[in-house]
């Protein structure tokens, strides 16, 4: 298969960037999108040109490292990560625009690589539980209902790729934060810190310059892990309740 690529090239975070045209020739239909870029890069290296920089790691859809906004949609059309997107989904001769995730809080490092450490800093602000280390406790010490466990898992499935923020017209990270707040807050191990967690993570999210949620629900549509936007509703409620109880405690 052959494709016309328009790839965003940018030297670094300080420099401006622009689209460059590349021809992807003789690409097997069963190549993944990243493998297609590998083939293009091999050609560039042979011609002595700078290869296109892009993020990738596990290439099996679980690590959340690959990014890319393909024809305006993070991870391309269909649910799943870019590494799980196959060229057979495109038509021969298609023109494909490849851009980095465009979020103010994710500055471009080079070409299609963006710095997503803002998510790590949000996690540091509360996306964990405080637990003494030691021998593992008995498996059935803390019973958790199946529905609760399943629902928590729906949110815990988040791989932190950042597609939610990249798809959001407001550059909002609320689906990511709601997923973390949601799965930890649903389980008994996470409940004691639930209030401080949601306040801390939301404050950090705002601090990092992410936008606000307007309920577009584009995040939900592109999320490779299928985290439902209903978790944002839960976070809205949890945050309001945590703020009220914090205000009441402050008067005590």
């Amino acid at each position, binding site marked *: 298969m052959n494709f016309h690529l328009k790839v*965003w090239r940018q030297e670094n975070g300080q420099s401006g960037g622009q*689209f460059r045209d590349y021809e992807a020739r003789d690409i097997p239909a069963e190549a993944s999108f990243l493998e297609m870029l590998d083939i293009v890069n091999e050609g560039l290296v042979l011609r002595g040109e700078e290869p296109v920089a892009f993020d990738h790691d596990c290439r099996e859809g679980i690590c959340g490292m690959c990014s890319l*906004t393909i*024809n*305006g*949609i993070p991870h391309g059309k269909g649910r799943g990560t870019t590494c799980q997107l196959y060229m057979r989904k495109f038509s021969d001769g298609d023109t494909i*625009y490849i*851009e980095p995730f*465009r*979020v*103010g*809080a994710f500055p471009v490092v080079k070409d299609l690589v963006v710095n997503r450490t803002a998510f790590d800093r949000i996690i540091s*602000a*509360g996306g*964990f539980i*405080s637990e003494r280390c030691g021998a593992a406790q008995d498996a059935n010490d803390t019973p958790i209902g199946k529905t609760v466990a399943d629902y928590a898992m729906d949110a815990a499935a988040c791989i932190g790729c950042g597609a939610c923020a990249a*798809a*959001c*017209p*407001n*550059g*909002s990270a*609320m689906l990511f934060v709601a997923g973390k707040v949601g799965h930890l807050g649903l389980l008994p191990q996470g409940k004691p*810190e639930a209030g*401080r*967690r949601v*306040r*801390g993570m*939301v*404050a950090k999210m*705002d601090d990092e*310059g*992410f*936008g*606000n*949620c*307007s*309920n*577009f*629900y*584009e995040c*939900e*549509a*592109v999320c490779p892990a299928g985290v*439902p*936007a*209903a978790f*944002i*509703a*839960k*976070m*809205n*409620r*949890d*945050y*309001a309740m945590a*703020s009220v109880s*914090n*205000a009441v405690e*402050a008067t005590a």
Partner: protein
Amino acid sequence: MSVAPVSSGVRQPNPLLVFARSSIGKKWIVAVSGTLLVAFILAHLAGNLTIYIGPYGEGINAYAKALHASPLVLWGARGGLLVVFLIHIGTALWLVLENRRARPQRYAVKAHVQSTVFVRTMALSGLVVLSFLIFHVLQFAAGLSCHSHLYDIEGRHDVAAMIILSFHNPWVSGFYLLSLVLLGMHLSHGLGSLFQTFGVNGRKTQAVIARGALVLAWILMAGFATIPVASLTGYLKVLPDARRAAPEPTASKS
């Protein structure tokens, strides 16, 4: 490692201010003020529909007289409404500006997967409705309409005649109907969005709430739209001038 120090000894900012300035807090403010505005729209529609009572719309004249019976309550309500409007618009615009900043570089290719046309036009539909509201208040409430000084059989301010005669002008009816379409679009997203912001939305309810909001929004708009349509088609009739009485002493300032 703990999440945050319980008490660091440093003076903490007011927790309610922290909430109000946060992304989620501002959403709550827009949603709460929006809910109050929806309540106003419902009351306003119920009031408007009284124009169908009586052969010459006397129902709305009686309703208007009752509204004006207590200036304190009326101006209190108007003042409260204005404050709610300013909070709703101000907070929403603040959010829009922050959202612009959060996405400094746009995509070259614009694509959307599942967002509706309503949510993508919220700021636009809101601002057009605002411009309509200014016109609407000047025309009907402030009495700048050229039909503002008619009195009915009982000497009450003939609100029905003012409305019907104004709507005989196709420009007035047209702008009114266009604004209703935009308000309907605004509510199509806003009514359902309230539930998400208040956190009473779940995976199973999301589609039901979105659809219910859409239906309710357009039912409300259809209710408002009947009045210009009934005026233009002649279903609503104006009291003949010969039967008008002199104004009551209190009716002159409306």
